[in-house]
């Protein structure tokens, strides 16, 4: 049975208010716990509102079943997707679908079960007969290999509504039900993938900017053409002239003539697929006869390049027909036709022309440019390395020759090649092209005597070709860098960091960590994502105020901490040492006279005692610290960091907060080795309450940080105001057990965890998490600043 939402909407609307109230009441009855707020129930009503009356009963029964037997969260994800699922299933089939979801929960846990419910297009297929949608997940596994084979690169797939590629990722829609048959929907995926791979392999987006400049001399080209990427730059510049035209899609459409031609010629199976898909498209929708040049091109593609072209001008027609006869591997013809079409007014026809040919899609210029830049940097590096290696080997060879014959050394001057020679040789290597005989490979370098492995030369030639496709020629600094590398002057790392701006600009990075699920006694792998970022500073006189207010205490702290800082300590009552220990000598003397056996430990030994301690302060920045608790924590941090400066221990300060497992945040306030600068003080001032307290990932990340520090004693000191808790299921025993596990992992790494808390109920759970004696409860917040440095002093001395 296929219950469309459109028909059900009519049924439900007239009595909407009453119905909604009844629904809400029913849901409140099911979810009457304090963990689910009324706003969630309102959301749920929103999901269920659209269902027709006769389905409400069974659906509510299933909701009750899931919520009662398994989990409220799962029930909510069921409600969220039930309307979509009912498009494919009738009520009986829905029950089987839910049963499958529950057994997934039993076997694999909450998240897989939620994923099962959240993609009904795919997961309902086994249960109902109406669902013929294909999904990218199914298609990707077999298509990925086809894509890698076709494009020669490591391709990954991502979901996007419009098909496109950035030359390393292929973007395709997540699910597809264009056609009534699963096989046909898969065919669409296959053709779209092949199309995108062909764009990558046959260089749709790679063309030297210098050559484009001569084709479009009227555009405002930037001066430094070598830095730009031809096609993206061209489209960007043209956008200025044609702001309302979808140039990206137009370009992809035109280029389809070329790449499909090549695909059909070289890959018969793919050609068959493309023709099959076009036939399907033509039979599915009535496509009107074209009334402008763009629609005509779309029609030309759809009819497999057989229709005569009427709307195009003389020149454009010749180009298009040429492309349709035999596609070339360079996109030059595409660009020429693109230019011709831009001269005629095309902007309205593009979308309607592309609609039937949905697999062609478009391109995201920004993403493309980023990838192309990364690729160019890689090519540059490898080219320089290989050429450098060849030249370096050559030198060794040449020196030998020199000793042997003393003949062919006139090209060598103090061990370096002449730049012109290398350039000439390179040009010959790269142009040697398809002739694969060994002679032609080694010959170019023959007059400067190189010992070249064929493999290296092959790779050099391949790289050189790719660079010429991209930039138009091999930039001279590549060659000179390679020569420098061969003589040891050039440091490739420096140049890469200099040219790749994207690395320098990123200010935060992501890490994933597992989480312990005590119910299953196992880890959930890669469960939490933590984002590390530098905390925002805030200007203000907070730090100065604290220093002024607690001047007396700071003086005390300085004295105390400087005392424990001493590098030397005297050990009394030792068996051997530099001087006599008067106290024990007196005792021994007295013992001797009292006829007792005297102690042998009569010496004092001066001992070099380095305080080799690294401590990481982890500050809870959850919303519950709002107000004076946060201020108290900040005050103690100021005093602590001053104390640490006195004592000279390595220390770092980090804050953590976040919401949900994918949104954990980790704020860098002070790294190990960073000075207590004004900036750090500003960051301390800027500490502000944020979201929840998901402790596990923060502790795991801190452990990773401490692992990298060298110290004899490593301490992880947590400042917190309550038990771990997050917005989702991270509460109660689950949260406590996960935190406990994270702390145990830290201990295994030789780190000593310690907790200072102000939660009065902390005695209930802290012993379990930290172990007896590894926490201190400061019941009075206003004493926190006094206690924290003191605790630290006692802890480490």
């Amino acid at each position, binding site marked *: 049975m296929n219950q469309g939402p459109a028909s059900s909407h009519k049924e439900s609307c007239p009595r909407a208010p009453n119905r909604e109230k009844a629904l809400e009441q029913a849901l409140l009855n099911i979810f009457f716990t304090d963990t689910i707020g009324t706003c969630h129930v309102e959301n749920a009503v929103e999901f269920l509102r659209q269902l027709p009356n006769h389905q409400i009963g069974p659906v509510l029964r299933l909701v009750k079943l899931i919520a009662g037997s398994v989990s409220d969260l799962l029930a909510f994800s069921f409600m969220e997707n039930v309307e979509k699922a009912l498009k494919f299933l009738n009520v009986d089939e829905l029950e089987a679908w839910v049963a499958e979801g529950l057994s997934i929960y039993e076997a694999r846990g909450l998240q897989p079960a939620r994923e099962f419910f959240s993609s009904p297009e795919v997961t309902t297929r086994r249960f109902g007969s109406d669902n013929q949608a294909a999904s990218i997940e199914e298609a990707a596994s*077999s298509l*990925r*290999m086809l894509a*890698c084979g076709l*494009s020669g690169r490591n391709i990954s797939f991502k979901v996007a509504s419009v098909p496109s590629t950035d030359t390393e990722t292929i973007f395709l829609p997540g699910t597809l039900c264009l056609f009534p048959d699963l096989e046909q929907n898969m065919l669409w995926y*296959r053709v779209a993938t092949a199309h995108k791979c062909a764009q990558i392999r046959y260089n749709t987006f790679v063309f030297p900017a210098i050559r484009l400049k001569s084709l479009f001399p009227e555009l405002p080209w930037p001066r430094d053409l070598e830095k730009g990427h031809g096609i993206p730059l061209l489209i960007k510049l043209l956008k200025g002239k044609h702001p309302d035209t979808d140039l990206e899609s137009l370009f992809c459409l035109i280029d389809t003539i070329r790449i499909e031609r090549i695909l059909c010629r070289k890959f018969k199976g793919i050609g068959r697929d493309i023709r099959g898909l076009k036939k399907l498209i033509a039979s599915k929708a009535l496509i009107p006869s074209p009334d402008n040049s763009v629609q005509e091109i779309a029609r030309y593609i759809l009819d497999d390049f057989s229709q005569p072209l009427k709307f195009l001008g003389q020149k454009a027609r010749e180009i298009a027909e040429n492309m349709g006869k035999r596609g070339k591997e360079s996109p030059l013809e595409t660009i020429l036709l693109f230019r011709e079409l831009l001269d005629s007014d095309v902007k309205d026809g593009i979308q309607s022309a592309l609609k039937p040919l949905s697999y062609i899609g478009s391109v995201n210029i920004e993403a493309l440019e980023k990838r192309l830049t990364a690729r160019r940097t890689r090519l540059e590096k490898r080219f320089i390395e290989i050429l450098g290696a060849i030249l370096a080997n050559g030198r060794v060879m040449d020196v030998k020759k020199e000793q042997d014959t003393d003949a062919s050394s006139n090209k060598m001057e103090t061990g370096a090649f002449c730049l012109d020679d290398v350039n000439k040789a390179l040009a010959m290597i790269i142009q040697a092209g398809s002739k694969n005989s060994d002679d032609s490979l080694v010959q170019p370098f023959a007059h400067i005597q190189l010992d070249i492995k064929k493999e290296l030369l092959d790779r050099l030639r391949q790289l050189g070709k790719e660079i010429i496709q991209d930039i138009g020629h091999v930039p001279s600094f590549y060659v000179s860098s390679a020569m420098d590398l061969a003589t040891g002057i050039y440091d490739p790392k420096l140049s890469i960091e200099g040219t790749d701006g994207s690395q320098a600009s990123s200010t935060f990075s992501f890490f994933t960590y597992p989480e312990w699920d005590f119910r299953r006694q196992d880890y959930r792998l890669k469960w939490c994502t933590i984002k590390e970022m530098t905390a925002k500073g805030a200007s203000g006189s907070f730090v100065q105020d604290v220093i002024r207010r607690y001047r007396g205490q700071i003086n005390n702290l300085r004295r105390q901490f400087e005392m424990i800082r001493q590098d030397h300590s005297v050990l009394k009552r030792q068996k051997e040492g530099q001087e006599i220990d008067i106290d024990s000598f007196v005792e021994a003397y007295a013992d001797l006279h009292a006829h007792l056996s005297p102690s042998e430990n009569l010496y004092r030994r001066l001992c070099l005692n380095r305080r080799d301690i690294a401590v990481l302060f982890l500050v809870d920045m959850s919303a519950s610290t709002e107000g004076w608790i946060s201020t108290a924590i900040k005050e103690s941090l100021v005093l602590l960091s001053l104390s640490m400066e006195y004592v000279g221990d390595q220390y770092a300060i980090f804050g953590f907060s976040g919401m949900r497992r994918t949104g954990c945040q980790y704020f860098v306030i002070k790294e190990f080795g960073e000075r207590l600068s004004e900036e750090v003080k500003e960051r301390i001032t800027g500490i502000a309450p944020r979201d929840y307290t998901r402790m596990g990932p923060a502790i795991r990340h801190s452990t990773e940080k401490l692992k990298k520090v060298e110290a004899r004693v490593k301490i992880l000191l947590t400042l917190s105001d309550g038990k771990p808790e997050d917005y989702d299921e991270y509460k109660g025993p689950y949260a406590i057990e996960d935190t406990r596990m994270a702390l145990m992992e830290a201990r295994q790494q030789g780190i000593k965890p310690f907790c200072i808390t102000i939660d009065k109920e902390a005695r209930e759970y802290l012993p379990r998490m930290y172990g007896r004696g590894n926490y201190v409860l400061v019941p009075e917040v206003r004493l926190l600043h006094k206690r924290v440095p003191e605790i630290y002093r006692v802890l480490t001395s």
Partner: protein
Amino acid sequence: VDLAQNLVRLGRMTRNLKDQGLQEGASTRLLIHAGKLIRSGIEPLLACDTAICQPLTDDEELLAGLKEMVRAVF
């Protein structure tokens, strides 16, 4: 000539699969075997499956990918 070109193309494609878990691509020898089978009248898809895909791997997923490639070429 056409057949040989297709086989070479297929061989090249399989050699791109190194990052996907295939130990090595189809060797010239395997390609020649496949060519001989096809010459003697066996369906290209079946011939390539027998002479190229099966000897290269027994991993289901890789096999499906290789078959997809064979389908693309022939």
